[in-house]
């Protein structure tokens, strides 16, 4: 599934250096483009490759000779359904991977994923409120996403606040407050579901929680894509501080950086990015956990190398996961969250067993 150069990281000691990681990043960027261009020809409706590209070329350059492709069913499937969906997949995959990498540094724990700070339970709570109780129905078509987004932000704000009560926050306090807040929000979600007898609503919540890219549209894509892009570029400039986070607070102070302020800022930034990701596609698990690990296995822990590669690999991963989820069962779409976990979990176990790198545990 990874369009990665098929090199094997055989030697335990050797990691790829900076020139290689720049080369790999460029190759991955090309692979993202190739993935989008290839994946757009695949789908449950059969459309010829020529028709697909004619539509895209028409939309990009508006040449007169392709004007027959300006509208109609083929145009709509390619330009309004498939392509926005692929772009969203790339944005969401990149966003989750970058935020996973950053969160693992912020809480100094390689088990962290982008949802660790209560984002997931906050989002589910929001979705439950919206679907079961109709909260926020006035906010328009995607009110479920908006309410989930707001509750996710609220949950991470709460986690940050609680972790700063008493003494200053530290990675352990953050993790524990994240768990506590998650438990509270999950309990409230369950409570609402328990009191309700709206079977349709319960089904909707379940579906929403599994994550889906079906809601993709150019207008919302533009927002999500720019948030992810700006966020990724921002974090790429922060690689030195992210590296220091892995060394811990004391060492960082002796190296001239007080991490406290940065930790708050990074959490805020990831919460925003993840909020938008949740808004556009629900909850897609495992990507944000496994891609950072995979990158560390190849490149070590230096964020200068793993942030760009994680973003691009995450994009490619989710593009193909989405293609698979659309075609694996004919005439039905498998929720992408299910597929990602089905594929991701065994991969993760494989990495764990192979243990060819530190993994954040004892050596």
């Amino acid at each position: 599934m990874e369009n990665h150069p098929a090199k094997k990281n055989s030697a335990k000691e050797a990691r790829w250096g900076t020139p290689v990681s720049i080369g790999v990043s460029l190759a991955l960027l090309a692979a993202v483009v190739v993935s989008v261009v290839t994946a757009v020809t695949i789908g449950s409706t059969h459309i010829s490759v020529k028709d697909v590209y004619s539509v895209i070329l028409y939309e990009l350059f508006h040449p007169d000779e392709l004007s027959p492709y300006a509208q109609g069913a083929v145009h709509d499937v390619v330009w309004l359904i498939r392509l926005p969906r692929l772009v969203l997949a790339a944005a969401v995959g990149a966003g989750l991977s970058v935020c996973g990498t950053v969160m693992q540094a912020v809480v100094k724990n390689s088990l962290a994923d982008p949802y660790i700070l209560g984002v997931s339970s906050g989002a589910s709570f929001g979705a439950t409120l919206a679907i079961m109780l109709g909260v926020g129905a006035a906010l328009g078509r995607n009110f479920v996403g908006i309410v989930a987004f707001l509750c996710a932000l609220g949950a991470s704000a709460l986690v940050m606040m609680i972790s700063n009560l008493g003494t200053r926050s530290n990675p352990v306090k953050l993790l524990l407050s994240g768990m506590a807040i998650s438990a509270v929000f999950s309990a409230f979600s369950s409570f609402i579901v328990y009191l309700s007898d709206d079977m349709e609503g319960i089904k909707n919540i379940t579906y929403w929680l599994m994550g889906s890219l079906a809601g993709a549209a150019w207008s919302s894509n533009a927002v999500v894509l720019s948030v992810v892009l700006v966020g990724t570029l921002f974090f790429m400039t922060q690689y030195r501080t992210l590296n220091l986070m892995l060394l811990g607070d004391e060492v960082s102070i002796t190296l001239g950086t007080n991490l406290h302020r940065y930790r708050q800022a990074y959490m805020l930034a990831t919460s925003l990015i993840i909020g938008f990701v949740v808004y556009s596609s629900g909850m897609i698990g495992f990507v944000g956990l496994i891609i950072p690990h995979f990158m560390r296995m190849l490149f070590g822990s230096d964020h200068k190398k793993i942030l760009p590669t994680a973003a691009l690999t995450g994009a490619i991963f989710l593009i193909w996961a989405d293609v698979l989820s659309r075609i694996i069962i004919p005439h039905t779409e498998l929720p992408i969250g299910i597929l990602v976990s089905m594929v991701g979990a065994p991969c993760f176990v494989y990495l764990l067993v192979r243990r060819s790198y530190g993994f954040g545990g004892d050596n």
Partner: protein
Amino acid sequence: MELRCDGVSAALGGADIVKEISMRASANAFVGIIGPNGSGKSTLLKCIYRVLKPSGGTIYLDDSPLGALSYKESARKMAVVAQHNYYNFDFTVREVVMMGRAPHKKQMERDNAEDVEIVSDALRQVDMEAYGDRIFSTLSGGEQQRIILARALAQRTRCLILDEPTNHLDVKYQLQLLSLVKRMELTVVTALHDLNMAAMYCDYIYVLKNGRLCGSGTPQDILRRDFLKEVFDVDVKIIRDAQSGMLHILYLPPRPDKTEA
């Protein structure tokens, strides 16, 4: 670079660990801090390298109070090799040493050729050039400690704080590390466990017991039989080697209780 503590106190969890300690390390002096376990050596050093905030008193680097400097500024003046550095994540040796350049960098600034050169220099100084591409966590404790020293050297500071730097090192590397540091034109403040090492390298020694300063002076002044008995509760014999003039502290086994009296 001169380092000065002026009546520094520190509390941990409500208990006063360090009580009104004043000390001074003049430019390029090698100053040792000795004292039994729990005497407050590490706590005092942590105040100096800013991981703990003193509850009283002021620490000066040259003439600037530490509190007036940003963390970046103090990290450009003072580097630290602490007791134990343990990293869960995989960094190569070169990446670890490169982090010593962090205090000299702006947020968005990239590492340049000069940084790379400084890192190679630092690795050469600790005799670990060949280890640049190794993964830090796969090195032995002693090798790791030398890499951490290299990182401190890469900071290019005029002052070095060592917090029991020779823990986990075998004798050869204890001597090597301290000799290396001694040779450099640096103000060194170090907590030491081994009194013979203190005798061998220190220009001046401060002695801590129960959080208070209970003596200071040159090794000859400090390392006396009755004083060491009082502070460390051990019986020693002190020998001065006729040829080298070096002090050697011989430890004697504790006498059985009270049979002497």
